[in-house]
């Protein structure tokens, strides 16, 4: 940690801590986001922020303090406050120490940041591409550079730095819209033209949107929609805390072959094709963790607290202590789904009457006990007839069983895309997915989004 301004303040704060054990997590982050709408930039922000999450352990009780850190030398005061807070902490913690020494890691996955002009040119090109095709373009371009550092009084010292760039585009025509996005750790690989082309292709499918009757349809979920579907398996299924509480939607599924045998999913924060993270937010090393293997549901993932509750070991899935979380507890954050042998075009060609769904909106579990997912489609809902995309369709509501949908996966595409999580894109260390398009049979469509 010698290269960061945090090294000496962290050592000093740990040395002066009066707690029996102390953990300091620092997230020092800079990012810029430019949002444009219908051809004009309306939001340009650069955020530079350093935040600390400190856990102190005294007499078996743990208190956590989260604070912005205006200066590195203000850390010691924050550690003292966290230590004082343990006096009013509630029940004893199942966790009786933080990650010990054993791993010292300084990892740098950062790529050179692009100058502002690159971003400006990309947005200008996206807007121009849309105009040339009669489309109005909106979107965002994000550049992020974050350093995560964790140190404990037991000797752990780990640090990683990573970058990523993200482009998302919505094109609108008079009655339709189309969406595409790209996420990459290497800014050089960002391809605004390709993102624009993909979004435009969806917005330009000819014809007025057709409103389909409710019922069961075969659907192809493009990668962003498929990721949205999987999120709930992580948050309400594989989450070790909900599993420890007996509330996991997978509580009767562990070890059973309930998904289609062509479904294999794992979590891997070490894969360089994803947004790598060599350790979790407690400092436990990350490693590939199977979630679903050829249809069989594997085990929950754990941080050190839920592992202690379940008398097992952490799987390296401690959650970020900062920011908005859909639900507390450990969860898979780096999803990988094994690609299949089929092209996306073949998935579409295999459907007689059905839908291609680009993106979902405001998905939720309509029933958190039974794992019933509900959400609407948006920005590229396309009718498939006789194996071809025929025309746009009015956005629909899907309400269906998560596990049931897993069991009805009848096709997996042979290409992978890295996508961000809908719920919390661009925010800290959101979930990410390396995922192919997926075909699901007999999806339950129970509503359409139309004013008429």
């Amino acid at each position, binding site marked *: 940690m010698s290269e960061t301004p945090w090294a000496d303040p962290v050592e000093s704060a740990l040395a002066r801590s009066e707690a029996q054990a102390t953990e300091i997590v620092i997230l020092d982050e800079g990012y810029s986001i430019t949002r444009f709408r219908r051809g004009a930039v309306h939001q340009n922000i650069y955020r530079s922020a350093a935040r600390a999450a400190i856990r102190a352990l005294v007499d078996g009780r743990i208190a956590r303090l989260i604070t912005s850190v205006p200066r590195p030398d203000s850390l010691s005061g924050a550690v003292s406050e966290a230590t004082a807070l343990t006096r009013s902490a*509630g029940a004893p913690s199942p966790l009786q120490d933080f990650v010990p020494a054993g791993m010292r890691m300084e990892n740098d996955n950062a790529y050179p940041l692009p100058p502002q002009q690159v971003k400006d040119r990309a947005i200008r090109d996206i807007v121009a591409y849309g105009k040339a095709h009669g489309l109005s373009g909106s979107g965002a371009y994000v550049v992020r550079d974050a350093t995560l550092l964790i140190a404990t009084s037991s000797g752990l010292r780990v640090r990683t730095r990573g970058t990523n760039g993200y482009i998302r585009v919505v094109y609108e025509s008079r009655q339709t819209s189309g969406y595409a996005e790209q996420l990459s750790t290497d800014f050089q690989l960002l391809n605004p033209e390709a993102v624009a082309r993909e979004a435009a292709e969806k917005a330009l499918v000819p014809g007025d949107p057709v409103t389909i009757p409710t019922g069961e349809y075969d659907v192809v979920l493009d990668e962003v929609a498929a990721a949205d579907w999987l999120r709930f398996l992580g948050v309400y299924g594989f989450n070790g805390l909900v599993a420890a509480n007996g509330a996991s939607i997978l509580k009767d599924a562990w070890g059973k072959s309930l998904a289609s045998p062509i479904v294999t999913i794992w979590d891997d924060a070490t894969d360089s094709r994803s947004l790598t993270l060599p350790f979790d937010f407690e400092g436990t090393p990350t490693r590939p963790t199977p979630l679903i293997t050829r249809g069989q549901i594997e085990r929950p993932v754990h941080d050190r607290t839920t592992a202690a509750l379940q008398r097992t070991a952490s799987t390296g899935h401690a959650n970020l202590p900062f920011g908005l979380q859909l639900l507390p507890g450990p969860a898979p954050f780096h999803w990988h789904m094994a690609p299949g042998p089929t092209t996306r075009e073949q998935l579409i060609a295999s459907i007689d009457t059905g839908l291609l769904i680009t993106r979902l909106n405001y998905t939720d579990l309509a*029933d958190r*006990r039974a794992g019933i997912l509900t959400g609407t489609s948006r920005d590229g809902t396309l009718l498939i007839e006789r194996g071809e995309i025929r025309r746009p369709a009015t956005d629909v509501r899907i309400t269906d069983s998560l596990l049931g949908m897993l069991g009805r996966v009848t096709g997996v595409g042979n290409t992978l895309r890295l996508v961000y999580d809908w719920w919390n894109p661009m925010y800290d260390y959101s979930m990410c997915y390396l995922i192919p398009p997926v075909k699901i049979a007999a999806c339950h469509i129970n509503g359409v989004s139309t004013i008429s």
Partner: protein
Amino acid sequence: MGLMVHIQTAVGHGYASTTRMDATGIDDAVGLAVSQAGEYPAPGPVPEGCGEQGEYRTRVHIDPFRVPSEEYYATMDRVAAAALRHPAVRLTESFIAASRVHKVFMDTRGSEIDQQFTTCGGGIRAFAVSNGEVQRRSNGILQGDHGQAGFEFVSETYQETLGDQMGAEATALLRAPPCPAKVTNVILGTEHMALLLHESCGHASELDRVTGDELTFAGASFLTPDRRGWFRYGSSLVTITADGSTPGAMGTYGYDDEGFAPRRIVLVERGIFKAYLSSFGSAIALEEPSGGCARGEGWWGVPLVRMPNVSLAPGDISLPQLLSETDDGIVMETPYTWSIDDRRLHFHFTSELAYEVKQGKRGRLLKNASYMGVTPRFWAGCDAVADMSSWRLWGLAACGKGEPMQAMPVGHGAAPARFRDVQVGESRR
């Protein structure tokens, strides 16, 4: 603690935020904001507010930060213990939250506004278990109930009677039949009304959704400008207002984060869509003054159009009378889950607790209830709104919007209301 700078250059505008509050940090932030400005023109000039010098403070009777933490725990323990006295209740989750935010706004026109917001609230969830089935009861909308107040809000709201009610109802739900699937009258309790107002009216009337600012993430709105002034949003019983000055409400403030005082805005008047929630920048699109609704979560969040307190005007019929005049219907109490599309049209909400109404009398308790609809059709079916005697205000601690996402407190007030021809069903089907 941190700071945000918003600048406009000849070619564009930019924001920068930082936690470095010394002179160098602030200079750097200004430089970064300038570099962010890029080559794109701003939609309008930088909002300079009205050059006001003002102050706002939440009225607090008991400072929550002077209440010992033991009192926080004791309050939660009392409520949870009351729920746990019901043998089927195996688990409770409860929390109390207090926050204080100090905001200072200054601009080059001389605005100098100092505001301090204190909020207090909490929530209780009771889980009853039998034969592998779990039923939950909780209070409030989605995240408990909160007010812009001191600890007195917690003391008044979180009492043993609340825990006992949650425990008893969770237990009773274990024996209840599931909600049947049918089209019927639905009477929404005030918590569901708060959710409905929030999702189908508050967000739908945000002008930045209409101008496309939120198109790529939060979405747009079906309330397009060509519909303003004539479009029938709901029945003639439906009048919905936004008011950032409601005492004690979570969405109350003295000035927004562009320096404008909030105005009372009639969004829907006797069923007709009338006005938007707006900021300075978004209102330019309609050549109107700001509605005073620009708020950012903190120094890191660009001010966005955020709803203040969006409420339904009470009707003129008592709740007992409304129920007695219902031949056949289902009452829905306390939202469980929620989902709505990106234009705020098609929604699907589920309910922790429901019960039948038959010939004006309360009937069977029902579990796992859901209802769905399309916003203007649903509100058009509103044929009764209860009067002020059953009107109440709810506080939501965190409404998410924006990229990166920001969470803002909002308030909603309503009395129960009845809606015709609603599709209801069992949430797990």
